[in-house]
């Protein structure tokens, strides 16, 4: 049970059509989430982490083109795009939490009304919808759940609204929660509370969590495993502990070094340059133009994943000789279609 895959994304490629041409954003994303596992998808602005989530939820923007990929939720294929056919179904038992709780709650309905809708349609229960809603609010540690049930969103603080969004996600009785920067708009003390709540709820109810964030610290404190994204590719993934103690990819290293430390070690250099233009992304490794270790090969060939340590995969030619090609790369060819 515990080792079953709750969510698998294989070879996901998404482009956007704009005036100047086609933005090749996602370049073959592979990721798996086991039941009850909390993974972090970490990267900077414009690295494609939100696009990945949107593709999984099937809510990509109108000008997005899905050029390949397969998404499996709880063992069922919900999205498959190959040369010959296209499958698109709505994913069941997946709930999403957005960055801005104010924008994701309807201002003209009470919290209770909105939550009962979720209970009725997502969890398919019409009797005792109210009770289920109040229970979910209690689970999200909202003080005085009965009162909040009758409140409008504007009567609550930002932190409380995000808790309501978490409660609403729970009310849908999901087994996978996708959270897109859920604490970015919150203060640090409130962020701490909300993250702890999210983590505890996922542990208690054995929910799988995909946490999209730009903050390495947030991912470290919440997630079991972390995928680091750069320019539409995953560059490295491993357990949280490994990523932070032994980062391998030059990008991960640069990113970690750029973070100011509480222990006070001064301000590091940061990473020179900026993310590539998606209209015309680098042929080989997308990080090559900013990488100090880049060789000819990096510019011409895309690196596969190499297992630098047990369960620690790096997409960088520096580690090609370490242990050979990882099994995960085989996902990139669509075997079943």
């Amino acid at each position, binding site marked *: 049970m515990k080792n079953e895959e709750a969510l698998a994304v294989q070879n996901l490629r998404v482009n956007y059509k704009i005036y100047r041409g086609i933005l090749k954003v996602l370049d073959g994303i592979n990721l798996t989430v086991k039941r009850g596992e909390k993974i972090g998808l970490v990267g900077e*602005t414009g690295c494609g982490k939100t696009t990945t989530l949107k593709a999984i939820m099937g809510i990509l923007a109108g000008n997005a083109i899905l050029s390949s990929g397969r998404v499996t939720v709880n063992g069922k294929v919900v999205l498959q795009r190959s040369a010959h056919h296209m499958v698109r179904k709505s994913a069941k038992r997946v709930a999403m939490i957005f960055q801005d709780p104010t924008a994701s709650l309807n201002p003209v309905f009470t919290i209770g009304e909105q939550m009962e809708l979720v209970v009725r349609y997502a969890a398919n229960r019409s009797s005792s919808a109210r009770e289920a809603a109040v229970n979910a609010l209690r689970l999200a540690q909202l003080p005085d759940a009965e009162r909040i049930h009758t409140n409008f969103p504007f009567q609550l603080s930002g932190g*409380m609204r995000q808790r309501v969004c978490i409660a609403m996600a729970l009310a849908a009785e999901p087994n996978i929660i996708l959270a897109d920067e859920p604490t970015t708009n919150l203060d*640090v003390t*409130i*962020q701490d509370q909300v993250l702890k709540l999210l983590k505890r709820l996922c542990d208690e109810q054995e929910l799988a969590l995909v946490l999209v964030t730009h903050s390495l610290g947030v991912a470290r404190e919440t997630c079991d495993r972390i995928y680091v994204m750069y320019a539409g590719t995953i560059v490295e993934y491993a357990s949280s502990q490994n990523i932070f103690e032994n980062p391998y990819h030059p990008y991960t290293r640069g990113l970690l070094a*750029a973070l100011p430390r*509480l222990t006070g070690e001064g301000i590091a250099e*940061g990473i020179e340059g900026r993310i590539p233009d998606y209209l015309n992304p680098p042929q080989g490794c997308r990080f090559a133009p900013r990488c100090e270790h880049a060789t000819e090969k990096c510019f011409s060939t895309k690196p596969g994943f190499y297992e630098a340590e047990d369960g620690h995969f790096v997409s960088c030619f520096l580690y090609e000789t370490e242990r050979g090609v990882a099994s995960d790369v085989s996902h990139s060819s669509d075997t079943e279609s």
Partner: protein
Amino acid sequence: MSVILRIRNLKKYFPTSKKGVFVKAVDGIDFDIYKEDVFALVGESGSGKSTTAYTVIGMYEATEGKIEYKDLDISRIHWKRPIQLKKNIQIVFQDPGTSLNPSKTVSQIIGAPLIIHKHLRGEKLREAIINALNMVELPSEYIYKLPRDIGGGEKQLVAIARALSAGPEFVILDEPTSALDVSIQAKIIRTLLKLKEELGLTYMFITHDLSLVRNISNRVAIMYLGKIVEQGPTSQIFAEPSHPYTQMLLSSIPVVTKAEEAFKPKQVQSTGEIPSPVDVPPGCSFHTRCPLAWDTCRKIEPQPVELQPGRIVKCHLYSKHKATLSGAKL
């Protein structure tokens, strides 16, 4: 070292729609900023840190109290201040997306203070603009670009170039990197620190990011609900946070190394939320969230206590009321 900015009992209240009810955004704060220091003002949203900055720069008129810049009382709204003062005190805003005029080129943006304060024109103006751009390590050909054509980090560098172009002495940095990615943040901060050394500037750094503060500032003041709860030299505050709120803030920061993990205070868990500044709790305004609060805290407002020279904390744990403290340990 000489004091460049002296704030005494500064208050800034905003009226609400209800008569006689005020939002007490800043409620009686005192601090000094020394020349060539980086002074960090830290707090969460609603703490009044930005209001303090905007009152110092003159965007708001102080309700009460004194702001002295080099012994000159400047607690007036900006249009009543002498023009020389506006050259000396500059501000960099949080979001470069809104602080640069979308219909102006980089050269017009950076040129505005140069025209106003230095009366430059023609080739001289152009040279000064290019100098300012090079100062923040942007290439000269940026002068004809529009803000929408350049990246977020570069926009912030343009905003910094604008603030520094006319040669100020004191710069207020209002969360200059919170809208940017960490790899870009590093570059901006390094540029700011380099320029501070080169030009002998003094910074007042407004932020909510304590990890950043630890690495760049000499002195810190922590604000909560319009009051400064703790202030002092950065190294002391981080090594030995005294106020329970400072401890809570520190323990809430998500960190990336074990060393940092060990560094965080453990005993104070984050609970509750910052109350509305319209309805400030009586006594110590932090008592609603403080795990160590006792009766005195709910009734009497703590007075500032100077633990060491320059290190001031506002908490009954350190005041004479401590005698009544029973059982609470720190």
